[in-house]
């Protein structure tokens, strides 16, 4: 099984010299396993992934998981070239939403005012599938579970299991210590819901081989922007410790963060990780990792 980062930047794509080394495309992560093509989030990174998939082999069946419909997680979809192939099938999974269904939001993104080709006119077969929270589904040979996270609107993380390997995608997410940012759920107090959302991070990451975590902020930045809906490395390490997860990937990098700053934060993070018993890595665009039960190694 292989993991490739096609987009690692949060909020908006950063085509500036300060973000060249780690990459400026918005979130898109590919998990490739024998005969299956699974992609998490459709940020701008999905454009080049689509080109690679079409050039590489006869892949015609794709599973796309969408964490939530903020621009940075869906804006690449209109440029995903496989969607323009008549013999391609794309299954788009996301957590159940009461209003503003994902299909409506994808369609709104391709309204003629904003984009030349409406979603409905794309030649491929696109299916939108809603996942019930906490109810695992099988897709592309993975067992996938989704749980809501503390982030404005309705957002969720994913837990993927296959061949004894577990990967958790916990992004976008706020720390959930004192502030509820997610749309409340009827029938439960805000406080109880906030605690549930905190626990959801641990459930997703429970015993995971690796956790891809929203480390957008430093603690100082977080203090000034608590309502933005993002976390810090420190929060991620705490979740990994509580969940006994082994590896953490710093992800969804702040658009202002320069490569040099990120490199320094990463060095500090590795040391902090050691004291938590967690190995810390940093998501870097274009990098591929080999995932096998019991560990991960970078591919050349």
């Amino acid at each position: 099984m292989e993991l490739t980062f096609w987009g690692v930047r949060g909020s908006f794509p950063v085509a500036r010299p300060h973000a060249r080394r780690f990459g400026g495309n918005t979130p898109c992560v590919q998990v490739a396993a024998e005969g299956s093509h699974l992609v998490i989030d459709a940020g701008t990174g999905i454009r080049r992934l689509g080109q690679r998939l079409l050039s590489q082999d006869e892949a015609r069946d794709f599973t796309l998981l969408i964490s939530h419909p903020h621009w940075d997680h869906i804006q690449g979809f209109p440029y995903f070239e496989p969607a323009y192939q008549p013999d391609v099938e794309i299954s788009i999974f996301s957590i159940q939403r009461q209003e503003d269904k994902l299909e409506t939001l994808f369609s709104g993104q391709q309204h003629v005012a904003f984009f030349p080709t409406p979603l409905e006119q794309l030649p491929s077969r696109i299916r939108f599938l809603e996942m019930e929270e906490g109810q695992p589904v099988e897709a592309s040979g993975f067992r996938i579970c989704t749980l809501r996270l503390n982030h404005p609107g309705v957002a969720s993380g994913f837990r993927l299991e296959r061949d004894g390997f577990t990967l958790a995608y916990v992004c976008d997410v706020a720390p959930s210590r004192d502030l509820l940012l997610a749309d409340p759920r009827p029938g439960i107090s805000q406080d109880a819901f906030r605690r549930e959302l905190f626990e959801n991070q641990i459930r997703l990451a429970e015993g995971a081989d690796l956790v891809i975590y929203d480390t957008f902020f430093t603690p100082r930045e977080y203090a000034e922007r608590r309502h933005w809906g993002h976390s810090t490395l420190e929060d991620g390490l705490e979740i990994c410790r509580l969940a006994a997860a082994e590896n953490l990937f710093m992800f969804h990098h702040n658009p202002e963060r320069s490569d040099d700053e990120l490199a320094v934060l990463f060095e500090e993070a590795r040391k902090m990780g050691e004291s938590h018993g967690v190995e810390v890595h940093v998501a870097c665009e274009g990098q591929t990792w080999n995932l096998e039960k019991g560990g991960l190694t970078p591919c050349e």
Partner: protein
Amino acid sequence: MTFWGVRGSIPTPDEPQARYGGNTPCVLLSSADGPLISLDGGMGFRWMTAELMAGKAGRGQENLHLMLAHCHWDHIQGIPFSPMMYVAGNRVTIHGRQSFEGGLRETLLHQVNPSYCPVPNFFLLQDVGATVEFHEIKDPVFQIDRVRVTSLELPRGNRLACSGYRIEDRGKTVAYLTDVEYPQGDPGTTPAALELARGADLLIHDAQFLPEEVQERMNWGHSTYRQAVELANLAGCRRVALFHHDPGRTDEELDALELQARAVARGPEVFVAREGLSLEL
């Protein structure tokens, strides 16, 4: 004049496009005592206005005019991430034409619908951030202080029309024609294009496609470098900047395209627009 974003369709923060730049359209026109004008609000607008924050915009004293070619994502996606939009006291006037039911304002409001973009809504809320005004262009000629602006609709194949601009200040003229597709691929057939570009000191023009790509990209709403240069030839422009580069076009391909485009110029000086490039007019 400074190019802050020259890429078409989608930002490309990728190595093969690093030299010419991957930010979507934004061109800044400024002068010592004239108005500040931004042509389009693509991703380049985010970085351009971040730089303005060091000056008057940071103190809430900036007055900016934003002219939109149309409301496709690549022309507006920098607006919600622009720091100057969140500073009270700044004034931003957005000029453009309706492309959504309900007009320009409704179109831009859709972009900051909380389902997509949970930012404090400076469009809707009086007490949040900059004061934003909308100028739905009806009369093709209007004045911004001493600057005379002409805006005409340009064809885009079978798609919605787009706005082109001619900006004249103290005898110098910049023409901005992007996201345009001419009938039969001939700019000579479009009087609006000729009128906007006539005698311009600088023509900034869509050059997304290569002539050999045009056949299969009919009705995508874009031009080739050949058509850009042809309009400059016909309209007697002094210089033409090839603009709105295809997201897949690499730096080396743009180098080659510049040479090919120069070969068909009859008079105008031709160059490829590059992010960060400034010109004194």
